[in-house]
């Protein structure tokens, strides 16, 4: 990094005159980056983008005038730290960019760390104490790259790299810095593609529902079947729900996808023998805007499935926010005969107060405890505790991820009510399930115990 000029021998501080040039917004920055890349002795060029974390919340709290003042103070503070041969662009909204010539990525990152620390120190703004954090993204362009590529494209690329690095820094928390590398770009490209494809997937009918049977351990009967959404991507093949459900939730797509699964599975379940119920997963986001209740009522009416053959599986997340309103929705569903199961119990916060907040019909014991059940003293103790917790509360327990006869026998001994997992059946297609239901006999279950 270029050493800042020393104003006098006593204090290594920069004078006002020796501050970096301030560029006129984004346009000025583009021109400056182009100029720096064109100048061989400026290579490698680093671009540092720094911004206030959660700026919307900051400006919401401060109001427009004070936010403006804070923003100017941030630009001023950054400018005081920068060397005079750097260039600074005020990008507005708590963001600024610094163009650093003839540096290395390591040096630029060291400065970024210093800058983020300094910007995160307390600000006094018009009589108020304002505490913020800032994060930074750093991208560096080597001589070889800038020489070979089209200049305009190189400018775009460097700006994009720095922006991606800032996004990446923000995704890992506050007050962080991140240096761009190819893996970050690949990850963002892949995420952006998945997002774009996910938006089209419902319309293109790329989702389908898989059905996994759940057996009552004591009788061996298949009492219900869990509907599981699957996405078969035309190019990438099957994409795990663990990957695409969080994206769908972030994009708000989970509501239409969830409603489609509900309708599709209800129509299918209406064809099953009357003693087989259907379980459908519900995302916490489906509760918002009061859409869940009408969606369930409409799906039941359209398909003719009886309400008491539908189980909705919710996770504790549905009870974390808006819990009063969401509990109201659950009660209204239950009044209509729909049953409610608490999914993934034992992971997350798993507050026992959830069990008191609503009379769940079923508690599903998370598969992470069941998978390594045998011979693991700790898992055995946890599963046993959940089972014994459910009984007096009139909540039946369901073990997920049951893979072996040994696990099944253990669960039977401990009084667990239901088993779901490869031991009974893997998730099946709609046809596969119908043939399974026709074939499955109680004897099959007994055979598993032998």
């Amino acid at each position: 990094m270029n050493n800042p000029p020393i104003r006098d021998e006593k204090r290594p501080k920069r004078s006002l005159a020796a501050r970096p040039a301030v560029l006129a917004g984004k346009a000025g920055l583009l021109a400056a980056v182009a100029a720096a890349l064109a100048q061989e002795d400026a290579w490698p060029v680093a671009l540092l983008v720094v911004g206030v974390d959660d700026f919307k919340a900051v400006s919401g709290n401060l109001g427009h005038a004070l936010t403006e003042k804070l923003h100017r103070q941030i630009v001023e503070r950054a400018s005081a730290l920068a060397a005079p041969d750097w260039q600074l662009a005020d990008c507005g909204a708590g963001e600024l960019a610094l163009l650093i010539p003839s540096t290395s990525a390591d040096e630029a990152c060291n400065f970024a760390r210093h800058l983020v620390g300094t910007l995160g120190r307390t600000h006094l703004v018009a009589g108020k104490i304002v505490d913020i954090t800032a994060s930074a993204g750093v991208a560096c362009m080597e001589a070889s790259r800038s020489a070979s590529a089209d200049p305009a494209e190189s400018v775009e690329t460097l700006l994009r790299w720095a922006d991606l690095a800032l996004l990446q820094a923000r995704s890992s928390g506050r007050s962080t810095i991140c240096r761009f590398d190819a893996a970050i770009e690949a990850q963002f490209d892949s995420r952006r593609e998945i997002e774009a494809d996910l938006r089209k997937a419902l319309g293109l009918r790329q989702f389908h529902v898989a059905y996994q049977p759940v057996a009552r351990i004591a009788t061996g009967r298949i009492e219900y079947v869990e509907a599981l959404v699957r996405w078969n991507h035309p190019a990438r093949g099957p994409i795990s729900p663990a990957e695409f459900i969080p994206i769908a939730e972030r994009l708000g797509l989970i509501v239409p996808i969830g409603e489609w699964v509900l309708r599709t599975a209800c129509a299918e379940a209406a064809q099953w023998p009357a003693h087989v119920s259907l379980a459908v997963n519900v995302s916490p986001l489906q509760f918002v805007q009061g859409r869940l209740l009408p969606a369930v009522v409409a799906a039941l009416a359209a398909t003719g499935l009886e309400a008491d053959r539908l189980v909705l599986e919710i996770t504790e997340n549905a009870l974390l926010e808006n819990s009063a309103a969401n509990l109201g929705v659950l009660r209204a569903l239950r009044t209509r005969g729909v049953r409610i199961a608490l999914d993934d119990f034992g992971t997350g916060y798993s507050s026992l107060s959830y069990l008191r907040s609503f009379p769940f019909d079923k508690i599903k014991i998370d598969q992470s405890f069941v998978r390594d059940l045998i011979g693991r003293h700790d898992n055995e103790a946890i599963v046993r505790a959940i089972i014994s917790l459910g009984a007096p509360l009139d909540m039946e327990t369901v073990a997920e991820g049951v893979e072996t006869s040994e696990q099944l026998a253990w669960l039977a001994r401990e009084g667990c009510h239901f088993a779901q997992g490869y031991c009974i059946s893997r998730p099946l297609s709609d046809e596969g399930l119908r043939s399974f239901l026709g074939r499955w006999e109680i004897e099959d279950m007994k055979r598993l115990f032998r």
Partner: protein
Amino acid sequence: MTALLHLAYYSYNCLPGGPFEVERQIEEILDSARRKNSRNGLTGALLFNRGCFAQVLEGARDAIEITFERIMQDDRHTGVTVLAYAPIGQRVFGHWSMAFIGENARDQERFGPIAEGSGFDVTRMLGEDLCRTLLRLLREEEVVSADR
């Protein structure tokens, strides 16, 4: 007359260099702050020891904010915590001064004269809760943070 505010903060000292270098910088800080503060109508006290700085500044809002911003841009301290920033009825301090507050005998010998030279009056500090708290904090953190 513009409204009067006071600001109190403390931070951890990271003056680089050996004892002589530190002494020189302390003197430099004192010199520069005294000049600027008197020009800007700021009164108060800067307390320090090997571990910490703690400062009370009194004056007009803009003067305090401009000065504080300069302090925030200074790398010679870290972990700044603002303890108070609020309007006050009247000044506690008659001017701006600086004092070494601590038990370390050698530092006491080295920096003690600064307090006298700057007209530091500890009775003013003891007259107010906030200032008393700052004094206590500084004494407690002297050793703790010198080890950092």
